[in-house]
C-alpha cells in the first residue's frame, strides 16, 4: 500500500493502478460485518436488489410478498456502526402494491426519481419515487420473470421484458406502450440484459437452454445464439440448435466493460462468453449450485484488476476470479438460498438477499482493524479500545486448572 502511495506521489504510476489495487484488496477482504446492518423489512424472501447508478446511495429491494423497499446506504453518522434505514416502502397496505412476488426491480439509470418493477402478477410498474405511485403500468399476458433498462441508452428508452411466453417484449417508456416483440426462443424467457457497451445490443436467456443476443434495430431475428461447444458438432449431441447450457439458463450478466457475458444454468455451470463473437471462452468455474426455477441475479465487480464474479451458490455467495475461474472464497451468512446479489462499485461492498428474508451487507475489512489487532496482540492485558469485545474473551473457569 505504501509502495503504491509513494509511486503515485512520484508520478510513476497511473492513478488507475492504485485505485485498482486498493479496490481489489478490499474485495478480497469482504466479510459479514457486525457494523453494518440492513433493516429487516421483508417478511418473505428477497428476490431482487438494485443500487442506483447516479449516487450509489439508494438501494431497491423487491420481496416475494410483493413489497418494494428503498434503503439509504450512505453512512453520515461518522461511526462505523450503521444500520441501513428503509427510506420508503411500498408495503402490503399500499393500494398500488404488486399482488404477487416482485421478481425484478431497477432504478431508472439516470435518475433516482423513478424505478421500474415487474412481478408475477403479470404487470410491470414504473414508479414515481416521490409519491410511491405507479406512473405507468404495463400489463402482460403471462407472469413476468425479468426486465431490464439499458444503462447507457441515449437514443431510446426501451425496457426489455422477459415473460413466461417465449417472446421478448420491448416497452417504450416514452410512449408507454409495447412497441416490439423479439421472437426466437422456445421456452420462457428467464432473464434479459442490455449490453453496457452498445445500447442496441440485448441478451436473453431462456428455459430452452438457449442464450440469444439481439440487435433491437434488426427485427428479423437474433444476431447469434451462444453455443457451448463453439460449433464443434461432434460434441453437440445431434441437436440442431445451439445451446448455452444443458438446462434452464436463469442467470445473465455482462461484465462491466460489456466485452464478456456470463451465464448460469441449472446444470450447475457458469460460462463466460465473448459477447462480441458469441464464443465460449471455456473458463471452468467448477460446480455452481443452482436449482432456482426463477431468475438468478448475480453480479461482477468493477474497477478491480482481476475482476471478480459474485454468484449465489446455495446458501452462500461464491466469489470467483472472472477470467481464471478460480474460486476465491465462499461468503457464508445466509440461512437459506440466496437469490440475488449486487455489487456497490464505489465502496466495494456487496449486498445479497435470500429466501431467509435477510439482506446482508458484506463490507471490506478495514486496514486499521489489522493494526489494531497487532497492537492488541502486543498488550493484551490492557483494556484498550476493545470495550465491545468482552464477548471475545475466553472464559475458562478456574476450576479447570
Amino acid at each position, binding site marked *: 500500500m505504501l509502495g503504491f502511495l509513494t509511486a503515485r506521489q512520484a508520478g510513476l504510476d497511473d492513478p488507475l493502478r492504485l485505485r485498482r489495487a486498493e479496490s481489489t484488496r478490499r474485495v478480497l477482504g469482504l466479510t459479514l460485518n457486525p457494523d453494518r446492518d440492513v433493516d429487516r423489512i421483508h417478511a418473505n424472501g428477497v428476490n431482487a436488489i438494485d443500487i442506483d447508478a447516479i449516487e450509489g446511495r439508494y438501494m431497491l429491494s423487491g420481496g416475494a410478498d410483493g413489497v418494494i423497499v428503498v434503503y439509504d446506504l450512505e453512512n453520515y453518522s461518522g461511526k462505523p456502526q450503521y444500520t441501513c434505514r428503509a427510506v420508503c416502502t411500498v408495503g402490503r397496505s399500499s393500494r398500488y402494491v404488486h399482488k404477487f412476488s416482485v421478481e425484478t426491480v431497477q432504478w431508472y439509470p439516470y435518475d433516482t426519481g423513478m424505478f421500474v418493477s415487474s412481478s408475477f402478477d403479470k404487470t410491470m410498474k414504473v414508479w414515481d419515487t416521490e409519491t410511491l405511485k405507479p406512473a405507468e403500468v404495463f400489463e402482460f399476458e403471462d407472469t413476468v420473470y425479468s426486465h431490464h433498462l439499458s444503462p447507457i441508452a441515449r437514443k431510446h428508452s426501451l425496457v426489455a421484458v422477459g415473460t413466461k411466453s417465449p417472446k421478448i417484449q420491448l416497452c417504450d417508456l416514452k410512449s408507454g406502450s409495447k412497441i416490439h416483440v423479439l421472437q426466437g426462443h422456445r421456452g420462457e424467457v428467464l432473464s434479459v440484459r442490455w449490453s453496457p457497451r452498445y445500447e442496441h445490443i440485448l441478451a436473453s436467456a431462456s428455459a430452452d437452454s438457449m442464450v440469444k443476443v439481439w440487435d433491437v434495430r434488426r427485427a428479423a431475428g437474433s444476431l447469434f445464439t451462444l453455443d457451448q461447444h463453439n460449433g464443434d458438432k461432434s460434441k453437440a449431441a445431434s441437436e440442431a440448435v445451439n445451446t448455452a447450457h444443458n438446462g434452464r439458463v436463469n442467470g445473465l450478466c455482462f461484465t462491466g466493460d460489456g466485452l464478456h457475458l456470463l451465464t448460469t444454468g441449472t446444470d450447475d455451470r457458469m460460462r463466460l462468453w465473448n459477447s462480441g463473437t458469441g464464443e465460449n471462452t471455456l473458463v471452468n468455474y467448477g460446480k455452481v449450485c443452482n436449482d432456482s426455477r426463477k431468475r438468478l441475479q448475480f453480479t461482477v465487480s468493477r474497477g478491480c484488476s482481476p475482476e471478480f464474479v459474485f454468484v449465489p451458490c446455495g446458501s452462500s455467495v461464491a466469489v470467483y476470479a472472472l477470467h481464471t475461474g478460480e474460486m476465491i472464497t465462499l461468503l457464508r451468512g445466509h*440461512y437459506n438460498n440466496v437469490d440475488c446479489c449486487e455489487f456497490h462499485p464505489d465502496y466495494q461492498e456487496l449486498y445479497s438477499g435470500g429466501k431467509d428474508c435477510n439482506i446482508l451487507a458484506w463490507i471490506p475489512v478495514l486496514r486499521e482493524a489489522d493494526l489494531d489487532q497487532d497492537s492488541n496482540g502486543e498488550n493484551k492485558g490492557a483494556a484498550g479500545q476493545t470495550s465491545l469485545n468482552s464477548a471475545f474473551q475466553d472464559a475458562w473457569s478456574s476450576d*479447570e486448572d
Partner: protein
Amino acid sequence: MELSHRERISQLVEELTTSGQSQLHQENMKDLKKLCKVSNECIEHVYHSLMSQLNQEHAQIRLSAFQISSELFARSHHFRTLLVDNFQEFLELTVETDSDLPLPPPKEVARKLRALSIQTVQSWQTSFGSSYKKLALGYHFLKQVKKVDFQDVEARTVAERRREEERRRKMETIYRDRVEAASKDMEDSCQEIEVTLTEMESCMKLLFPDFSLENIQTGNGSSLDDGQPCCSKDLRDGEEQGNKHGRRKERKSERAGGSNAGGEKDKQEEEEEEEEEEEEESTDDNLFIRHSGLVSHTYSLDLKLSPDLHVTETEDNEAVVSTVIDLHKLITTKHLPAVQSWIQVFTRSGAEQPLLRRALDLKQSLESTLQKHKELHIDYKGRAPPEGKAGEEEEDDEDFEEVPEKEGYEPCIPEHLRMEYGLDPSPSTSAAAVPKRPVAPTPPPFYSSSSSSALSRRMRRLIEEEQDPTSAAATLSHLKKQISVLSECSTSPSAIAGPSSSQSSSAHKPVDAPVVPFGLDLYYWGKEQPNAGKIIKATSQHQFWVPTEVEEEVENHELLAESKSRYISFPGTFTPVSHFCKAPLANGTLCQRQDRHKCPFHGPIVPRDQDGRPCLNEDRVREERRKREQQPDWRDVELMRDIEAATGEDLGSERAFGKKGKRKKKKKKYPNLSDLKQSSNTSRSRLERKVFNKSSMRRAADVMKQSDRRKHDKFSNQFNYALN
C-alpha cells in the same frame, strides 16, 4: 500442537460422544477443557472432530457432541468464531432447520436434542448475539423464518403447534358429538330401563316376597297370609290338597328356602312341619293337643336357615320365571353395556356432573338388581342352561353363535337323524366293527318298533329303497347280510373280532382283546385252505394261437406260509419319561431334555445332584475324561499362545479361549449407544424380508404366469376368454 495432544483429544471426543448418556462424563470433559486451554490449534482440532461427530447419523452422538460444543462455546472465543462461521450447518444438524435432513433416530433423543439446542441458541443469543453477527442472524432466522417459539417448552415450530391444536379441536368436537349422542340415547332409553327395573323388581317379589329375615322371626301366620302375593298363594294352594296345614307349610317353605320343590314332598319335610306346628300353637294347650296330638310344649327345635336362597321353577311360577329370564337377559345384554358406554363417554369427555351422576345411578340400580337376581339362585328347571345362567356366565359367550354341525364328518349323530344317514338307529362304537346286534337277513324288526309315525314312514321308505340295488341303503344291507353269513360260517368263538363275541359284548365287553383286521386266515380258521399257495394260470381259450404247454398250477411255499400266518405286534404301553438329563449347561442351568436312555448332547443319562454333577464316582471320572478328550492337547490355550507369539500366525487361541464374549464385543463398536438397527428388526420388517424376497417374488410370479398361460392355452381359440 503435539501429536499426543491430538490423539488424546480425538480419543476424548469419541469417548464422550459415544457414551450414550444424556449427561457428559465430568472427568473426561474436564480433561478435554484442560487440553483446549493449551492452544487454539487444539480448539480447532476439537471443533473439527466435533463437527464430524455431529454429522453422524445417530441422535445420541449428536446430543453429546452438542453438549460438548455448548460447554466450549461458553468458554472459548476461538471456538465461538469457528462455530459461528459454520452456523448454518450446525443448526441443520441440531435444530433440524432443513426439513430434507431430519434428525436421525432414536426419536426420543432427537426431540431432546432439538429442545436443548433451541434453548441453548437462545442463551447464546442473549450473551453473545451482539458481538457475533451470524449468531444473531441465525437466531432471527429461527425466530422469523422458522417461527420457532423460544418460550415454548417443547420448542415446536408453528406448523407442529398448529397441527397439535387442530388435533385437539377435532378430538373435542368428536367428544362433544359423542356426549350429545349418549345423553340423547340416555334420555330415550331411561324410561325403558326404569320399566325393566320395576318389572324385574316386582317379578322377584312375586317369586320371593321378601329377603329380610326379620319378617320370619317376628311375624305370625295370619299377618303373612294377608300380604301373600299370588304366586306364593298358588304354591300353597297347590299343596293344600295333600296337606291340611297349608299355612304353616307355606311359612316353612319360605324359611327353608330351596325346599320348595313343587308337589313332591319327602318325609323329612313332613316331620319338620309337624314340629313347627307344635311350636306355633304353644299357647292354646287343648287346642294344640287336639290338633296335633303332641303332648309336651317343651320341644326344642333347630331351624336351619340357609344363607342363600333357592327358587325352583315350577309349573306355577313358570311364567314369572320366564319373564325374569327375559328381563335378566335384557339387562345384561342391552341396558348394562349401554349404561357403561355412556359412563365411559361422559368420563372421558368430562361432561357435566348431573349427566354422569344419572348414568352412575342407573348403573347402580341395574347392578343391584342383577345382584338380587343372583342371590335368588333361581333353579331354571328344564331350560337351556346358557340362557338360564346368563347372570353367572360372562357375556362374551353370547358372541358365539351355535352352529349345528353339517355335512361331512359328524362325530355323534342324534338318534332321530340316524335314519337319514342310512345308519342303524343304535350308535355303533366304530365303523369298522361289526354291528352289535344280530343282523337279521330280512329287514330288522326294530325298525317298526320306533314310536313316531314319521319315523316309521321313513323306515318304510328305507326298506323300499333297499330293494333298489343301486341305492346306498341297498349296498349297506347287502354288506350286513354278507357279514352275517360270515359270522355263521365262523365256527370257533374266537375273541378276535368274532361277530358272535361282539354279539354278547353289550353285556360284558372283553377289555384287552385286540381287534385285528379280518383276513384269509380267519376265513379258513381251523380248515384246510383249498388253493393256498397255488398260482393258477388260466389256459388259453384261443382258437389258433395256442401257447406252449404251461403248468397250470404252481405250488408256492412262501405264498402258502403267508396266507396261513398273521403278524400281531405287541407294542406294550407308553410310559412318559419323568427324569431330566440335568447335565450342566454353559449358561449355568441344567439340561432339561427328557430322553429315556441317552441325551443326544450329554450322552447316557446318569443320576446327578442338583448342581448337575454325577452322583456316582465312575460317571464323574468318565465325564472328566471325555472333556479332556474333546480338546486335543495341541489346542491347549497356553501352548497355542506361545506358538503364536513365536511364529506370529493366528492359530485361533483367542477364539478357543473366550468364544462368545470376544466376538460380541467386536461386533458392536459402541456398546453404550442404542442400536439403531435393532428397531428395524420388527415383525413387519422380517415379514417384508420374507415376502419381498426376490426368489419368492419370482416364484409367485411364475405361478401366476403359469396359471395365465394355462388359461390361455385352454381358451386361446375363444376370443372372449383370450382377451382377459
